[in-house]
């Protein structure tokens, strides 16, 4: 089949539109997955505000903030990559997409370093570890458990996102993503922006206030 679109679609724009709608419905379900964790955070914080404030004070604010900057820059690079690909600037699009992937890996590296610092201090999910025997407030356990659950689930999304972007990078290199067939790259970038959007809320909840 030489056509730019699958035969069950009337045209390439209609196929792209269907792909975007499907992607957004998938992203909506991802938002709701994290909504459960945010709701738990709200409930537990309303129940034990002092313990949660202490938990936030104890988190690695500088590293979390550095990761915020890394993700915001990576999202900008992803948007610029889509823009370049639409304009037919393949090499530029590939370079920007490779930068996005590299920044995603930097994010994961910083995140795992943060986890190693917590583990060294005796902070583990489920309120286990020596940290919780020296800090009496029992509500610190839900804070750290939610921290590991939320940031861990987010890190999984970052890892999946880098794989999806790497696949798009390969397709750009092969030429199967081009200005006439751009929606696979657009959808990969949408996923990456979702990862960024989730982190935009995780950051203040666990690191700032």
């Amino acid at each position, binding site marked *: 089949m030489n056509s730019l679109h699958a035969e069950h679609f009337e045209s*390439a*724009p*209609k196929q*792209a*539109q269907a792909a*975007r*709608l499907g992607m*957004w*419905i998938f*992203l*909506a*379900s991802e*938002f*709701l997955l*994290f*909504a*459960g964790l*945010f*709701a*738990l955070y*709200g*409930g*537990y*914080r*309303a*129940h034990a505000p002092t313990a949660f404030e202490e938990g936030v004070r104890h988190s690695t*604010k500088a590293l979390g*903030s550095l990761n*915020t*900057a890394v993700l*915001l*820059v990576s*999202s*900008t690079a*992803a*948007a*610029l990559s889509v*823009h*370049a*690909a*639409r*304009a037919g600037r393949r090499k530029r699009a590939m370079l920007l997409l490779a930068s996005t992937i590299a920044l995603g890996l930097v994010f994961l590296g910083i995140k795992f370093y943060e986890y190693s610092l917590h583990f060294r201090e005796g902070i583990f999910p489920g309120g286990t570890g020596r940290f919780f025997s020296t800090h009496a407030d029992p509500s610190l356990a839900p804070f750290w458990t939610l921290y590991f659950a939320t940031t861990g689930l987010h890190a999984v999304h970052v890892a999946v996102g880098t794989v999806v972007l790497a696949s798009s990078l390969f397709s750009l290199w092969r030429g199967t993503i081009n*200005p*006439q067939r*751009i*929606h696979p790259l*657009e959808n990969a*970038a*949408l996923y990456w*922006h*979702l990862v*960024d*959007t989730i982190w*935009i*809320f995780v*950051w*203040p*909840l666990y690191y*700032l*206030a």
Partner: protein
Amino acid sequence: MNAGPSNSRSGEARKGSSIAIVATGVLLLGLAAASYGLSFVHSGSWGLPLALGIAALKAGIVISVFMELRREAASVQIAAVTALLMMLLLVALTTADVATRTVPTVLPPTAAH
């Protein structure tokens, strides 16, 4: 808000300005820096709402500019807005439920007799 097949935009029709994208990125970093700076100011009970307000603004910018929701067809916008509303409802109602409980959820010992 637009609808219908005529709004199935091609990549060609979505070409914007790379300067606008870079400016958006700089704006997002500026807002993040503001949020970081405010976290060192003792703002009492306003600290979290303020930080979340800036986060909501940043998320709105990402969704509108980078994710191009404002240019999407009505079907896509409805799917996205519905998810955001459901998320807000879930978080707000769960938090409000716990925050406003004044009566113990189990019967006090005197009432059990």
